[in-house]
């Protein structure tokens, strides 16, 4: 324990004041005013003090926004508020661009927050990534479920080691299922009830446009939906059932998985060496006790759902545009047919009918000929 007594006596120089005080040359760097102007720490004051335009070399001036170029005459009126903001913004960016490359270069490293806010995609699944995320660590050998034997590589330091090739293969398949269901417009429910899983579950469900659950599953929410969900005071809507459930800790949520089995809802779950792989439709053999591994897997599934959803939305937009164009064309054709019918009934000259010109289409030509011959026949005109 080291107590730096010396610093407590002379700390005002470096600590305790605003950060900009420590770099008094900030204004001199991008300001063309003289360095003699004292810096008063009011750089970020808005709006600037009225009526003070500091000429170069004069007494302590106001914020630098109002005294930029030495060529500006002392008589010029202070800049408008918007102009000041624009100049300061430009200066700020110039400063950032010049100083951004200074300082330590930090190598790419593991950033826990990045795993949650910007997780990797299904195409980024590698064995090295799963290993670094501690997805291969199973439980003590005495606690295993023998049904998991095919996913276990071996034993090391008293625990089972999950085969990462199995993990990668099952995770890719689960991602494909999630992407497919999302593309079909299915409702996906992300469930993670352990502490620390809330954020990643919410993010994944947001990407999928589905639902999330990070607190205890109310038993009967599927099998007894009418009583559990529809009779709560604020929920007046009809309860829906998910089309796919992704569960990050199946051991604790066995009731939810049982209900899904009863109602034929497919499930995806992270199966550790002590969990039963038959509880879920698509098991992902991996470590469910490491937050990093769980966040990685949930993030990847969320990204897969996002991709499926984006594809569905784009296709829907494209199809609606095509449908509109088609409908417009059909409406125009209908209008033309209607006009022809009116012409036939009202004995109008066909050439005056809109869109009835010689457009070169064979079908229309023959139709035109047919209608003309009918008209002539009715009137008794010669051909």
């Amino acid at each position: 324990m080291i107590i730096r007594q010396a610093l407590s006596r002379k700390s005002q120089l470096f600590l305790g004041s605003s950060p900009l005080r420590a770099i008094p040359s900030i204004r001199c760097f991008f300001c063309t005013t003289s360095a003699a102007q004292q810096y008063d720490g009011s750089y970020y004051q808005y709006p600037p003090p009225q009526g003070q335009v500091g000429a170069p070399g004069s007494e302590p001036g106001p914020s630098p926004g109002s005294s930029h170029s030495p060529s500006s005459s002392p008589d010029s009126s202070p800049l408008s508020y918007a102009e000041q903001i624009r100049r300061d913004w430009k200066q700020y960016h110039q400063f950032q661009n010049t100083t951004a490359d200074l300082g330590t270069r930090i190598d790419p490293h593991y950033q826990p927050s990045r795993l949650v806010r910007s997780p990797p995609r299904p195409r980024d699944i590698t064995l090295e990534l799963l290993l670094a995320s501690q997805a291969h660590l199973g439980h003590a050998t005495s606690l295993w479920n023998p049904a998991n034997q095919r996913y276990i590589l071996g034993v090391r330091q008293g625990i089972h080691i999950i085969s990462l090739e199995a993990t990668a293969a099952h995770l890719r398949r689960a991602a494909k299922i999630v992407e497919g269901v999302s593309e079909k417009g299915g409702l996906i429910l992300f469930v993670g009830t352990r502490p620390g899983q809330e954020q990643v579950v919410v993010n994944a469900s947001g990407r999928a446009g589905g639902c999330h659950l990070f607190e205890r599953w109310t038993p009967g929410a599927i099998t007894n939906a009418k009583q559990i969900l529809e009779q709560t005071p604020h929920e007046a809507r009809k309860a829906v059932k998910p089309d796919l459930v992704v569960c990050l800790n199946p051991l604790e949520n066995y009731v939810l998985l049982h209900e899904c089995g009863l109602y034929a809802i497919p499930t995806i779950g992270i199966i550790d060496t002590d969990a039963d792989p038959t509880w879920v439709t698509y098991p992902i053999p991996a470590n469910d006790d490491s937050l990093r591994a769980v966040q990685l897997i949930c993030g990847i599934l969320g990204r897969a759902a996002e991709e499926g959803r984006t594809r569905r939305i784009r296709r829907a937009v494209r199809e609606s545009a095509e449908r509109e164009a088609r409908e417009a064309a059909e409406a125009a054709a209908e209008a033309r047919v209607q006009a022809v019918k009116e012409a036939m009934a009202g004995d109008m000259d066909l050439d005056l009918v809109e869109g009835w010109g010689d457009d070169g289409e064979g079908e229309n030509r023959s139709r035109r000929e047919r209608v003309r011959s009918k008209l002539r026949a009715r009137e008794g005109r010669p051909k």
Partner: protein
Amino acid sequence: MGRQLRPLRVHQIASKMLESGRLQEEPAWYRVVGAMPPTTSLVRPLPVRMRPLQPVNTKRAKKAKSNTFRPQEIVYPEDKLRTQFYKDHPWELARPRVVLENDGNDHKNYDWSQLRQPGRQLDGESVIQHQLWLLNSNPYLTTRQAYDIARKKFYQLRLQEDIERRIATEEALAVGAVFDKSYFDIVFEREGQVLQDWKTKAAQDLALRKHKRNAAYSSTSLGEDAAAQVEGAAAEGTETAETDVPPVAAAVAVG
């Protein structure tokens, strides 16, 4: 809860429901799951073989359960070297170990011709990896020789670290740092406290024995007087104990 078969049969169940008319339209997941059906199998395959096949011991095989499907111990050639190193240097196990990895590709950039690697702590593991590098690069070196070369380099580096720590302490003291109690001070204090407690209890025990002895021989009535006598004797005992021996903690100077 036991084995569940319904999750694996969702597609068949949904098909039956559609046939019977219980479901009017296909669920959103129906075709997706149909295209990629679940493949969970409860049949156990042979595990990955880590050790060569052993001849079957017929005497044991008659009674014992088969280990054929049991996952095997994962063993690396470095494990023998690790056992040797940590047997010789048990206090290296007391050093904290960082097992955090970035993306799993750190090992690709390591050059084990030296002990120190950027981004990696100096550890017993560095010694073993350098030893392996020496063995792989020089075919005439024995394991023992490579081990001696690696561990002596390791001692040099640890010595450097110790010197750096000592210099850092001196520099800190020179600019006015005040260090709290050292481990020695804390240990001596605790020892002194334990001895003091023992002294107090011993005095109380002595007084009690004295009282019992007196009670065995005297004919006076026992009661509050006797209890007060015992307490007084105990207090007397602690006082004498305190005056006899000076406190141990005061003897140690703060470094």
